[in-house]
């Protein structure tokens, strides 16, 4: 008979909770991803690959083994069979683990982090299905191909939830000339985003910034004497008439959004502001096409 210690009970219940949440999240992501139809997405040029691309007349320098004799036998010329160039792309995802992402303005809405994880996973499903390699920045999940990677991604995203109030993109482990997608509310220090984006651009990384906001953050539906605190409690602001602050807050928010967007455009990234009150599908579609464009 073994003694059940409180620690082991706690760990087990946490593990079970996680185990319950993960398949649900995965199923949701799969469901979301299934709404996007994947087309043929070769590189549209000749190269290494499995799929047939074109026959071209042989010219000097082609080795005899390259000739496609079956095609050549039908005419007087010699033809070389070319295959489509297929190269797997690497996409690194960063989902803001900070506590500000835990915010939800209404009980009926999930926190922002849920939406961010869902979008990231659904995008991963699509990309993995397309044969790309997907991973998380940092050490959590190195980019790999294959469906098994999904589980690693999921674990990586849900495991390391930060303690700080606002997060900054982690660019460690970004591979040169790969793609990256950053999910965050970008309400923290914009300088850090600039720095991170600069480092990414230095390595030739292109990608997308997805700013996820709660509708309450867009509307500021508060009034009366209020003390606002950040999710971790590190920042606080007291006002006697919250309603009076609304216009100025909205101005600042617009300015922040504008700054992030300008930053993204300047470094050749794409920018999307997504609200957790909206449908995730349109955001996923946008993301998919944004990555497609960047190729």
């Amino acid at each position: 008979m073994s003694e059940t210690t409180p620690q082991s009970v706690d760990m087990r219940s946490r593990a079970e909770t996680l185990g319950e949440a993960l398949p649900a999240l995965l199923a949701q992501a799969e469901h979301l991803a299934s709404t996007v139809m994947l087309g043929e997405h070769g590189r549209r040029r000749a190269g290494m690959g499995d799929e047939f691309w074109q026959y071209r007349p042989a010219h000097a320098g082609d080795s005899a083994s390259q000739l496609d004799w079956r095609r050549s036998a039908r005419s007087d010329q010699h033809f070389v069979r070319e295959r489509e160039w297929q190269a797997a792309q690497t996409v690194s995802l960063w989902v803001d683990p900070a506590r500000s992402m835990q915010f939800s303005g209404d009980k009926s809405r999930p926190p922002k982090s849920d939406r961010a994880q869902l979008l990231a996973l659904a995008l991963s499903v699509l990309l993995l299905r397309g044969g790309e390699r997907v991973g998380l920045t940092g050490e959590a999940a190195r980019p790999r191909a294959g469906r098994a990677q999904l589980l690693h991604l999921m674990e990586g995203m849900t495991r390391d939830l930060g303690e700080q109030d606002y997060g900054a993109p982690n660019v460690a482990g970004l591979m040169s000339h790969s793609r990256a997608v950053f999910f965050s509310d970008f309400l923290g220090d914009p300088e850090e985003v600039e720095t991170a984006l600069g480092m990414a651009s230095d390595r030739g990384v292109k990608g997308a910034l997805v700013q996820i906001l709660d509708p309450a953050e867009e509307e500021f539906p508060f009034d009366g004497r209020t003390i606002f605190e950040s999710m971790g409690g590190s920042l606080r602001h007291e006002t006697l008439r919250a309603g009076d602050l609304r216009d100025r807050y909205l101005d600042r928010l617009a300015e922040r959004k504008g700054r992030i967007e300008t930053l993204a455009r300047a470094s050749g990234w794409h920018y999307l502001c997504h609200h957790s009150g909206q449908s995730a599908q349109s955001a996923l579609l946008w993301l998919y096409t944004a990555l497609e464009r960047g190729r």
Partner: protein
Amino acid sequence: MFMIGPLGFTAPLLLLGLIALPVLWLLLRAVPPAPIRRRFPGVALLLGLTDAEAETDKTPWWLLLLRMAALAAAIIGFAGPVLNPDQRNTAETGPLLIVMDATWADARDWPRRIDRATALVAEAGRTGRPVALVRLTEPAAEPAFQAAGALGQTMAGVTPNPWAPDFTGWAKALPAGRFSSFWLSDGVEHPGRADLLSALQSRGGVTVFESPRPVMALRPAQFEDGAIKLSASRLPATDAAEVEVSARGLDPAGIERELARVPLSFAAGAADAEIKLSLPPELRNRVSRFELAGIRSAAAVSLTDDSLKRRKVALIAGQTGAEGLQLLSPVHYLRQALEPVAELIDGSISDVVLANPDVIVLADVATLSPDEESAISDWLDKGGLLLRFAGPKLAASEVSRASEDPLMPVRLREGGRNVGGAMSWGEPKSLAPFVEGSPFYGLQIPDDVTVSAQVLAQPDPDLPQRTIAALADGTPLVTRKAVGQGQVVLFHVTANAEWSSLPLSGLFVQMLERLAVSSRPTAPDAKDLAGQVWVPQVSLDAFGVMGDAGDVAGVEGADLAAAIASVGPSAKMPPGLYAGDDRRVALNVISANTVLTAPVWPADVAREGLDVQNEQALKGLALAAALTLLLADLLAALALSGRLWGGLRKVAVVLLAFGLFAPHNAQAQAPQPGDARAIEATSEVRLGYVLTGDARVDRVSEAGLAGLGTRLTERTTIEPGAPLSVNLETDELVFFPFLYWPVTADQPAPSSAAYAKLNRYLRTGGMIMFDTRDGDMPGQTPESRRLQLLAAPLDIPPLEILPEDHVLTRSFYLLQDFPGRYTNRNVWVEAAPPDAKLAEGMPFRNLNDGVTPVVIGGNDWAAAWALDANDVPMFPVGRGYTGERQREIATRFGINLIMYVLTGNYKSDQVHVPALLERLGQ
């Protein structure tokens, strides 16, 4: 008591608390409203923003004022404010006698009088005076003074009585010692008041209380010139006023309701008003009482008795059409006697029986045709009174000679007899006194009534019982026999003065009245009522409410007559309806000659009206005001801290839960109870089946329709939802295009409301498929008999066996057989109209858009369609491959049927396709 103007305070020291208010001002002013803490990531963007106005960190002045007012209201409330505190009578000491008239006139504002008396008792209790209360309508007895507390508890049970007070008796019964009196007078003069007043004054001070409200009294209704005369009297006679008199009685269903209502206008200064109300006899005979609408007193109610009732009497004379002197007409005297008091009907016997009269008078009618005889016999069995008079024709006829005629009370001897005529011996005979037991018992016989000729009864064994009046020599003059519930009465003389002087006398009218042929035109006098005991049946209390009289001893007719005429009701003879042998007499509080006069009080008697200012405790009001202000403060505080709207939503939810919002508003918003089902039934096509009460049959119906739905979804564009059960009594039918109604042998028939619903459903294009599920049985089965019963009230058109060219045979599949589990070919649908012309071999069917409202068969289709949870057929059909083929055809029939239900005559229009194609081709 501390007084400020009309306001007194029971706890004035608490008012000192008001001094604390300014302190509160300073205190509250320093404390700003509490903030809300919110977690909000956007705070990063807020840093550095400052508030535009800084002054709101103090409570705004109006909120302060609100709170101060609330507190002040609370303090004042607890200080016990009383408006107009009652401080009268506090100077007097000694016992207090409260004298209440407690008559019918008090009933109009009885609660206020009781309130006044209760206040007096309470006041006496405060000053420790013993108190007694007497009701002058009760039998006089020496009043017992007792402690106010003991008396106060019995006050609610004190009620007035519907008769006049006994002033003289009470004047003698008063105790000797000194006491002061408070007399709650009813405002109407009654005899002996001065005696009682002087007796009271001799014991101590007297205060008289009189209500300023007028006394209204309704006199008994009288019948005059074919109309009912209603009159009312009032006291005092002031401005012009209008009251409404309502006639109440039983309607044909036996429920009491208002039969008529007529306004009665008092001219200014007039004490009396009257109006004539003309009612159809049927309605008038049903009136049981008149009342002044809205006045709660026995004086405002006048019970009606038989005097208002007019019986329908049919007069039929033997020699109709014969020329003769009017005075010789056999019915002339009857007509004279009855015309003022009854509705007379003339005509042939067969006609008048149809009018269902109360009485048929046959004056010297001898023979009746067999038809007439049976008609009269039937009418007699139902309680009619056949009154026959003898005459020359009866005497000469053979009617009731050898054997007793059913419509004659006795056998007659041939020829009759003449006495006292010119050619006979003896004197005309006079009448013997009526014996006890005769309906005429008690009537005075005038000396001048003589009989000179009569028909004679055969001496039969039961002749003495049937004789109700006889001549002095013992020969029967009037005989009576009961037939069914009715009776036959024969006067052995003529109805005119030919054979006797009886029709000329007043006795004749009285005899008719006793026989209930007529009813008395005016109030009964002592002569009418004497000799009988009258038992109260319905009694009237002082508030004018009718009740069962219970087992009260009967009263002598003479006393009753006196009470009706002048004395009025008393404790021994309460107002109400009194029943005698064959009629009822009403004793009302107000008789025809009651005069209402106001009492005149000596100048030295203190008088008081109801318009005194009652003391009114304002504590509750002040506390309510304080609470209201605090609520307003709550809202204001919420508004200031920005929590109002979120909070209001919650408050609204709570209020709704407690039903504090006006219910009709809530209902206007809330979905109706049937909405959910209506949406369920209409959001997609639903097939319905009628619940039979047999769970197994219902289950098969549901499975069958579900199976058919599956097949429809597989093969056609119709994709019905799960079938819905339909309870004909409670559910709305219009949502269903198709109802499957399996018939069981013991199914209860729907109610008439359900039938109305079904007929509406059929008329507006619904279809019901009746399935007797007995296709394998030959002949009449219990189910088909049940179906005939169930379908009888339904609006079903003529039916025919499904013809070969019917649209049902081609609406989706081409079919000629319509099997279910059984393969009976007899499936009935609406017959084609007889004038339907054949368009290329097909009759036109255009009723209900060409859809037959019913399909009737017995092939147990649902069982053939039924699939279980695994989509495997639930029941075997036939054998082997043939059986499966039959099931397939059954399914195809179901598909055809639903197609037909949903598309109507669309397929029938296909006959025009060649013509259309031809036209298109050109």
